[in-house]
């Protein structure tokens, strides 16, 4: 009795996700762009590497080096939220407008089975899509580069995959929240997109503004290093509020074993710069993960909190469909 309701909802939602025109279109577009970019990046890398003895850790460069317009990691960072939003924006309000929500809730299932089942189905779909993309890109890499990834690289890709799933899961939770709060499907889609645009484009401005208010740079002659550092630190802390920043920084470090810090080179003191330039060896995965542990924890936390809010709102709503 206990959870059969949730699994019934989960199963049906999963079937819906994979058979709906919308998801198929989305997946096709993403795979197309991903494949083309992977091929271009792969060929580019191969040309660069001709003549060199095969360096280690080249597989990850598939994801991080820029193709024509963007690297694959940037592409997934940009489109990930879109996947999450497409899967969730009409989750609840569609049931409401088609009058199927009252039918669902008059079956002997716990009320939260509906929201849990939908969220889990969305998360599973995201996981399958992202896994497919990563595997396809790796496959192309194998073909074009002729390099087989080592365990270190596979480990990093696995961490990258898990972090990406959680990140897109945040956007899924957010769009389901919008579908709970707004009656119209178009309204909830627009609300989710508005939030995305805000985090993607305006967060940087907002963070700089906050930094200038809290720790302003002294105008005039003396611009000491202390003030600059403080200003930058406030800015980077405020920008951590944006899940996009959290994700980009975290995956930047995970995918590039040579990057040891999320800060830019300019803002480090001379001693630090020296140590960075001397110790060029790549970091083991554990160390990279430790650097971005706060980012990872925050990502998980915001996803859980977002889903928690969504859950609470759904449970409190009146059912009446007329």
């Amino acid at each position, binding site marked *: *009795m206990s959870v*059969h*309701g949730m699994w*019934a*909802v989960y*199963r*049906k939602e999963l079937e819906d996700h994979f058979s*709906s025109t919308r998801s198929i279109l989305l997946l096709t577009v993403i795979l197309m762009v991903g494949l083309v970019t992977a091929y271009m990046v792969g060929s580019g890398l191969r040309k660069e590497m001709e003549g060199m003895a095969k360096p280690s850790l080249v597989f990850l460069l598939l994801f991080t080096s820029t193709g024509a317009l963007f690297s694959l990691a940037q592409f997934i960072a940009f489109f990930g939220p879109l996947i999450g939003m497409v899967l969730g924006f009409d989750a609840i309000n569609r049931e409401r407008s*088609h*009058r*199927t*929500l*009252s*039918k*669902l*809730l*008059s*079956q*002997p*299932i*716990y009320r939260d089975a509906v929201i849990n089942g939908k969220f889990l189905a969305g998360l599973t779909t995201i996981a399958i899509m992202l896994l497919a993309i990563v595997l396809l890109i790796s496959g192309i890499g194998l073909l074009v580069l002729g390099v087989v990834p080592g365990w270190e690289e596979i480990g990093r890709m696995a961490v990258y995959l898990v972090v990406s799933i959680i990140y897109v899961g945040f956007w899924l939770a957010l769009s389901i929240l919008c579908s709970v709060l707004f009656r119209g499907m178009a309204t909830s889609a627009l609300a989710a997109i508005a939030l995305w645009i805000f985090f993607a484009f305006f967060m940087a401005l907002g963070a700089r503004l906050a930094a200038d208010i809290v720790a302003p740079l002294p105008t005039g002659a003396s611009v000491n290093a202390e003030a600059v550092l403080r200003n930058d630190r406030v800015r980077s802390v405020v920008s951590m509020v944006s899940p996009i920043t959290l994700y980009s920084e975290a995956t930047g470090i995970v995918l590039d074993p040579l990057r040891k810090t999320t800060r830019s080179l300019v803002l480090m003191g001379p001693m630090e710069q020296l140590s960075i330039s001397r110790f060029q060896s790549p970091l083991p995965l554990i160390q990279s993960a430790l650097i971005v542990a706060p980012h990872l924890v925050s990502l998980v936390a915001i996803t859980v909190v977002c889903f928690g809010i969504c859950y609470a709102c759904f449970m409190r709503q*009146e*059912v*009446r*469909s*007329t």
Partner: protein
Amino acid sequence: MEPAIETHALTKRYGRQVAVNNLTLEVKPGEIFGFLGPNGAGKTTTLLMLLGLSEPTSGTARVCGHDPTREPLLVKRLVGYLPENVGFYEDMTAVQNLTYVARLNGIRDGGLRHRMEELLDQVGLLAEARKRVGAYSRGMRQRLGIAEVLLKDPKVAFLDEPTLGLDPDGTQKMLDFITDLSRRKQITVFFSSHLLDQVQRVSDRVGIMLKGNLVAAGPIQELAKQKLGVDQERYTLEEIYMRYFREDATATA
């Protein structure tokens, strides 16, 4: 015998507005109870409270001996519901829709297919079983709704305006179903409607709701005696109802 449905002083308030006021009624097992009233009288709200889909402001209700607010899952397992505008997943076929409801009820996939075909045959939808529900007419949707109710093998069936929008043939079929549910399957039928002649045709007892208050309840004959005088041979429910309605209108004027 324990009543199938009973309420005591059941009340629902939305802010200042009282949708259902102090409702006390009883429905015996296996009987057909017609719940009458104009639009906005509180019929649907009462149904929702009996189903456990809405929480009463005060008062209690019991369906098959269980409280729908405290034990909603038990009640929902025993009760079938046909809402006023029944909703289906338009992109799925009738069979797929029924399968989903069956799974939600924990019915095993084993003999399900055979059972569904039987039910669809009973309601006359076997030929269109594999068509998308989006293409169904209103009559077909109502019939599929009934199939869904029967799928659960319920003890009580709540039907909200089941004949609304149906053509005369569809209406007759629906009324036959209702009678069948009670007489052959011993299911208690609690249905709400404002189409009085139809309610008269099938109900054992009726209850009249006006502005949230239950102004009368009982077999139609008794109500006729009360309202139209003794020895009234030929009466219509409409006449009885309009008496109550006018009384209420003049009382509040």
